[in-house]
């Protein structure tokens, strides 16, 4: 297990390094001039030159990268071109918002997807199964911006029971900050639940057809015990898929956060790209890569525990 953790950490560091190089190169060749963006179209070439020097853009890419890397090793990602605030702090704040949103979305998604998937698996071919499959297909095919907009129209505009956008004000009560989370979390939870339900339906359905289920029944075990035993097998492949979903959420739900003007990582990503705020773009992209790899690592550990064969034989 320790060897495994060590190897994975090495992989993580190498990947982050490569990602940082790639991000630098891509940004370097992106159209537009950050200094121009910061100063506006009326700025004179002289003013722009000064601004470029101020932002550190006058040095060569190579030089800038080495400086940036040296700082990054101390978790200092520089300052935002747009706000002048440290990038690390900006990102941590935004990630806090994203984390809050995602936890709620994942809890809702599991609460919805797990029972639906199990019910569909145990009654495959029934009307209930068809209904659940239809829900899952809908949840996956309706675009996120449409779903978000629909929820806003119904619950914020028509019934006026939920706020339409933002995250509220600092220092508000937990309850009122929760109100800002409900609609975007629901938007994220629906496709999450749909994926979970679909996978469980197939995996648990297949597990229920395995010989060990027949054996368990022949030994008189209760249906509930038989299903739980089969479920433990079905969860192994399902965990991988859901891990990818979680990783994607944590890297910032760009569309959902934009639709709801929710100040998380996804929103920050869009903002920073639009304003050519290089340090922030670099920061959010690296965070995304790190979070994704970390989640995949956690998935592997969880699967190691769920699958004794993998744990014991290291297969």
């Amino acid at each position, binding site marked *: 297990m320790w060897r495994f953790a060590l190897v994975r950490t090495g992989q993580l560091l190498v990947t982050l390094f490569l990602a940082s190089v790639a991000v630098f190169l891509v940004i370097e060749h992106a159209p537009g001039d950050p200094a121009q963006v910061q100063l506006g179209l009326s700025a004179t070439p002289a003013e722009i030159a000064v601004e470029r020097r101020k932002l550190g853009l006058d040095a060569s890419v190579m030089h800038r990268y080495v400086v940036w890397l040296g700082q990054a090793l101390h978790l200092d990602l520089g300052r935002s071109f747009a706000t002048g605030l440290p990038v690390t702090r900006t990102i941590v704040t935004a990630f806090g918002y994203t984390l809050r949103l995602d936890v709620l979305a994942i809890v809702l998604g599991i609460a919805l997807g797990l029972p639906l998937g199990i019910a569909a698996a145990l009654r495959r071919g029934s009307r209930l199964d068809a209904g659940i499959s239809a829900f899952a297909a809908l949840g996956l095919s309706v675009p996120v911006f449409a779903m978000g907009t629909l929820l806003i129209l119904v619950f914020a505009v028509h019934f006026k029971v939920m706020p339409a956008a933002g995250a509220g004000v600092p220092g508000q009560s937990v309850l009122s900050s929760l109100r800002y989370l409900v609609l975007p979390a629901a938007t994220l939870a629906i496709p999450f639940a749909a994926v979970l339900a679909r996978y469980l339906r197939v995996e648990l359905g297949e597990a229920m057809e*395995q*010989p*060990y289920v*027949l*054996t*368990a*029944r*022949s*030994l*008189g*075990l*209760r*249906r509930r*015990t038989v299903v739980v*035993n*089969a479920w*433990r*097998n079905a969860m*192994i492949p399902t965990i991988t898929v859901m891990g990818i979903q979680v990783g994607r959420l944590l890297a910032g739900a760009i569309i959902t956060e934009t639709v709801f003007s929710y100040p998380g990582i996804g929103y920050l990503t869009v903002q920073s790209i639009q304003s050519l705020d290089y340090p922030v773009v670099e920061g959010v992209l690296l965070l995304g890569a790190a979070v994704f790899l970390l989640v995949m690592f956690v998935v592997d550990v969880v699967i190691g525990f*769920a*699958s*004794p*064969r993998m744990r*014991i*034989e290291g297969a």
Partner: protein
Amino acid sequence: MAAGTETVLDVENLRVSSGARGERRVLVRGVSLTVGRRRTVALVGESGSGKTLTGLALMGLTPAGTAVAAERLLVGGVDLTRMSEPEFARVRGRRIAMVFQNPMEALNPVLRVGHQFSQVLTRNLGVSRSDARDRARELLDSVGVSDARRRLGQYPFEMSGGMLQRMMIALALAAEPDLLVADEPTTALDTTLQAQVMALLAERREDVGMGMVLVSHDLGLVAEYADEVNVMYAGRVVERAPTREMFASPVHPYTLALLRTVREIASPGTDRLSSIPGSPPPLDDPGSGCAFAPRCSFATAECTAVVPELKGVAEGHDVACVRSER
């Protein structure tokens, strides 16, 4: 059946069908078996003749979309024909149990064997978990598994097929059922292990005092361990007789053909597995008249006209063939 032996299985006219009403197809029909305590009744026949389906029907475990009917189905005197699924689940593992062909797939791969014993023992013996642990060790002892404590901490994939089949036998017999259905219990094992596991089953049958339905296509095994043999073809019993009688004076052409394949294998110079030319029909489409007719060298026009009924040819010896009806 010998006089004075208590009957543990009494099934009359067992029928398994599939498909919705209106387009129902019969897969197994007219199987009647009587098994006494400490007796073994064998079901033999080629693959696909409905032996497993018959065994599953006794357990109430036929696949979804199939239906089981019987004029009588008594196990240990209990009528199983009118049971709800939860009621039937309480009978399984207690009055009637089954051992399957492939021990490598029979246990749940992600649960420790000890956990699976615990689930079965707490359910079927009503014991606490800690008592279940002690019982599991005794049971493993009874099936010749040493080092029980370590074994119970392992997962199925850490064990050999022979070991797993012993475990399965221990689980199936934990609550000392009246009847065990053993479906090809040694087919998946190495030849040396086959004899050991059969000997174990015979020994446990005596100790537990149960009856056994032994499903097998291995006639040598059947000759050694069964008291009565039922030969199945295309979902029907075509001949049944006490074992000695069956091997001494078989009557049905299918039985003759089966026995001939065994003798050819046993005689020196033939290392190739010989078999009866052709293959059995699908269970749900046995053709008209005698299902064996297309492969039978004695077949006449009469054979395809009506399905021959099982008729007595000697004491306890019944045959379903037009030739024996005269």
